C-alpha cells in the first residue's frame, strides 16, 4: 500500500467510527432507559415483597383430655371449651397484629395415667412445648417427671391434689390446690350441723389427699371424720354403697362426705338414693361430680332434696367474664359450663400468650413468660396469678346444689365461701 492510499484511508476510517458510534450511543441510551425502567419495576416488586404479610405461623398446643373413662362426662364438655378458647385466642392475637394461628391437638387419655403419659410423649415427639391437661391429679403425677425432664410446660385446669404443689417444676395448675377446698367443705359441713361424718373417697392421689386435708380441718373445727376409701375404675359401686350404709349405721354419723369424680359419683349417688339409711343423713360433695348428667336424673334429684345435698367447687361467683363465657358456651355449643370449664378456658389463653411473649419454642422461656402473663391476666376463673408452686394463688370457692327447675333437675351455685364461713345467696332446698 502507498503512503497516499494510507493517508486517505485514515480519514475515511475516522468517519466510519463516528457514524457507527451514534447508533451505538442511541442503543446505549435506550438500553439505559429500559434498564432503569426494568430496575424500577423489579425494585418496586422487591419493595412490595418486603412489606407483604408473611405466611401465617401455626403453633400447636397439645391437649390430653378425659374424653372417655371416669371423667368422660365433663371431658366431652371440655372439648367444646377448648374449641371456644382457641377461637377466642386466635381472634385476640390477630387483633393485636400477630400473624399467628393456634391449633389444638386433642388426644383422649381415657382418664388413665398411662393414657396421659402416652399422649404427652406423642406431643413431645411432635415438638409441642405446651400441653394442657391432664385432668386428674394421678395423671399429672404420672407425666410430671417426663415434662420436667423434657422442659415441656404442662397446665392442668383441674388437678387439685396438694401433693403436687411443687415449686420450680414445669407443672402449672390454673386452679387452687385442694388444701383450700377441703377447708371450705369442712366449714360447709360443720356450719350445716354435721359433727361426725364418713368421708367416702376415691382411693387415689386426689381422693386420699382431699380426705386427709378434710379430716384435718374438720377436726380443727371440732368434728370427727371416719375415712372410707373405695377402689376406682369399677363398673359399678353397689357393693361399696352397701358397705357405706353399714358403716353409717355402725358409726352413727350424721353426714356423708363424698370425694369422687363424675361417673363414680353419679353411680354412688344413684345407689345411695335407694338406701333408706343413706337417705336419712346429710350429704356433702367435692367438686368432682359437678356437671355430670347422671346427677340430673330424677331419682338423684329427689335424693339431693331429701338429704339437702351441697357441694363445693372452685368458682368466682359474680364474675361478669364467667357469665359471658357460660352464655357463649351454651349458645355456640349447646352445653352448660361444668366444673373447671373456666379454668380450662383460662389455661388456653395463658398458654397462647405465654408462647407469643416467649417468642421461641424454648420450654424455660415459655415457663418464665407464663408466670409473667398470669400476673396480669383476668379471665372467667378470675385473676390467674400463680403462687410459688405454680398453682392458682387466689382461689375462690362456691357452693352448689341440685335444684328442681322447669326443665328438670339441674346444678345451681347457691353460696360462696367468705372469710371463714359460707354465705348462702339463696336457699336451695325448702
Amino acid at each position, binding site marked *: 500500500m502507498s503512503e497516499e492510499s494510507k493517508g486517505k484511508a485514515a480519514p475515511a476510517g475516522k468517519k466510519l467510527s463516528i457514524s457507527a458510534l451514534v447508533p451505538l450511543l442511541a442503543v446505549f441510551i435506550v438500553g439505559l432507559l429500559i434498564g432503569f425502567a426494568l430496575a424500577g419495576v423489579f425494585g418496586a416488586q422487591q419493595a412490595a415483597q418486603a412489606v407483604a404479610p408473611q405466611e401465617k405461623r401455626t403453633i400447636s398446643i397439645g391437649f390430653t383430655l378425659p374424653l*372417655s373413662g371416669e371423667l368422660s362426662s365433663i371431658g366431652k364438655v371440655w372439648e367444646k371449651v377448648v374449641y371456644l378458647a382457641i377461637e377466642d385466642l386466635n381472634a385476640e392475637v390477630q387483633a393485636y397484629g400477630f400473624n399467628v394461628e393456634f391449633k389444638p391437638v386433642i388426644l383422649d387419655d381415657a382418664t388413665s395415667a398411662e393414657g396421659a403419659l402416652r399422649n404427652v410423649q406423642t406431643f413431645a415427639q411432635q415438638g409441642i412445648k405446651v400441653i394442657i391437661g391432664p385432668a386428674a391429679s394421678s395423671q399429672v403425677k404420672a407425666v410430671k417427671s417426663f415434662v420436667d425432664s423434657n422442659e415441656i410446660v404442662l397446665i392442668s385446669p383441674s388437678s387439685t391434689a396438694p401433693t403436687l404443689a411443687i415449686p420450680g417444676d414445669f407443672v402449672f395448675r390454673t386452679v387452687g390446690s385442694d388444701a383450700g377446698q377441703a377447708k371450705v367443705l369442712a366449714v360447709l359441713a360443720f356450719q350445716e350441723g354435721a359433727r361426725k361424718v364418713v368421708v367416702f373417697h376415691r382411693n387415689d392421689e386426689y381422693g386420699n389427699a382431699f380426705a386427709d386435708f378434710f379430716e384435718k380441718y374438720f377436726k380443727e373445727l371440732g368434728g370427727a371424720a371416719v375415712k372410707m376409701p373405695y*377402689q376406682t375404675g369399677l363398673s359399678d359401686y*353397689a357393693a361399696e354403697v352397701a358397705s357405706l*350404709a353399714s358403716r353409717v349405721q355402725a358409726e352413727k354419723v350424721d353426714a356423708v362426705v363424698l370425694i369422687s369424680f363424675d361417673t363414680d359419683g353419679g353411680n*354412688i349417688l*344413684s345407689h345411695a338414693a335407694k338406701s333408706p339409711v343413706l337417705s336419712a343423713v346429710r350429704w356433702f360433695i367435692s367438686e368432682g361430680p359437678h356437671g355430670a348428667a*347422671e346427677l340430673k336424673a330424677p331419682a338423684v334429684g329427689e335424693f339431693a332434696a331429701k338429704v339437702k345435698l351441697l357441694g363445693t367447687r372452685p368458682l368466682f361467683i359474680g364474675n361478669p367474664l364467667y357469665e359471658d363465657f357460660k352464655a357463649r358456651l351454651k349458645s355456640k355449643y349447646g352445653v352448660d359450663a361444668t366444673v373447671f370449664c373456666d379454668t380450662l378456658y383460662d389455661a388456653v389463653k395463658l398458654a397462647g400468650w405465654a408462647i407469643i411473649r416467649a417468642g421461641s419454642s424454648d420450654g424455660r422461656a415459655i415457663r418464665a413468660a407464663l408466670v409473667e402473663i398470669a400476673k396480669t391476666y383476668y379471665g372467667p376463673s378470675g385473676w390467674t396469678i400463680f403462687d410459688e408452686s405454680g398453682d392458682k394463688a387466689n382461689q375462690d370457692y362456691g357452693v352448689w346444689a341440685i335444684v328442681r327447675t322447669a326443665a328438670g333437675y339441674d346444678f345451681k351455685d347457691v353460696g360462696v365461701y367468705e372469710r371463714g364461713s359460707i354465705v348462702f345467696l339463696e336457699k336451695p332446698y325448702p
Partner: protein
Amino acid sequence: MLPGYPYSILNSLQYFLFYLLFSVPLTLSYRTSKVLNFSHSNFIAYGMYTAIFLHGLAGNQSFLVAAIAAFLAGGSIALLNHLAVFRPLEQRRASPAFVMIASMGLWIMYNYLLYMLADVAHAFTMKNFISYGRIDYADIPDLRILDFTVDHSLLASLASATAFGTALYLLLMKTSLGRAMRAVADNPALAEISGIPREKVLRFTWFLCGGAAAVGGVLWTSFSGTITPASADAMILQVFAVSFIGGLVSLSRTILGALAISLAENVGIAALNTFFGIPTSFRPFITFVTLLTVLIVSPPLGAAGGLPYRFRRKVGGGR
C-alpha cells in the same frame, strides 16, 4: 345379722343374676367353639348401648323392645366375628392362642367403634352418651311385697335369668339341635363324622351367646347408675373368673361360680369391712384371688393341662 344387710344380700342376688347372664354364654361359646373370646365384653357393651341409643335417640321406655333389639345386635356381632375372623383362622389351622389374640383385637376395635357411635349420637343430640344414667323402663315396675320393695331391675333380672336358664335347659336337653351342640362341645371331630353339621351348630351357638350376653347388658342399664362404653370391660375379668370356676365347660359349675363370686364381692367385703376394718377398695382383690386360686387348683379345659371334668373323674379313680 349379716353386715350390710339387706343391701349386701340383695346386691349378691343381683350380681349373681348378672354373672349368670354374662358367664353362661361365655362358657357355652367356649365349650362349643374352643375360642377364648375376649370380645365377649363387646356383646355386653353393645347390649347396653342398644338400650341407651333406643332410649336417648328414640325415647324407648320398653325393656322388652330394648331386650329384643339388643339380642339381635349382640347375636349379629357374635355371628359376624365367627364368620369374618374365627372361622377363617380355624380354616388356616391357627393356634388357640392366636385366635384368642384375634379376639382381643376385635375387643379393642369394637370398643373404639362404640366410642365413635356415641360421639356421633352426641353430635346429633347434644346428649352425653359416653356416660349415661340409669334407665327406668316403663314395663318393669317395682314389686311391693308387704313392707319390702323388690327393685324393678332385680325383678327383670330374675325373670330374664329364669327364662334364659329354662330355655337353655330345654334346648340342650330336649331338642336335636341341643344334642348336636353338646356333641360338638364334647368331640367336634366325632360329631362331624356322625353327620352333625358343626358349622351350623357353631353359628347358632355364637348367635345365642352374643344375644344372651347383650340382654344382660340391657338389664345392667336398669341397675347401674352410670353406663359408659368401658362398663363391660371393667367387669369382664369377673365374668371370666366365674367361667373359669366352671372350667369353661360345665354350665352348672359356672352357676356355682356366679354365686361364689357375687357373695364374695358383696357379703364377703361387707363382712371384712365391718369385722376387720379392711377397706372396701379390696373388693377386686377378693375376686382376683379367687380367679388365681381356681386357675392353679383347677385349671380350665385347654389351659395349663386342664381337663374336662368327666376325664378328671376317671383320672382321680372315679371320685
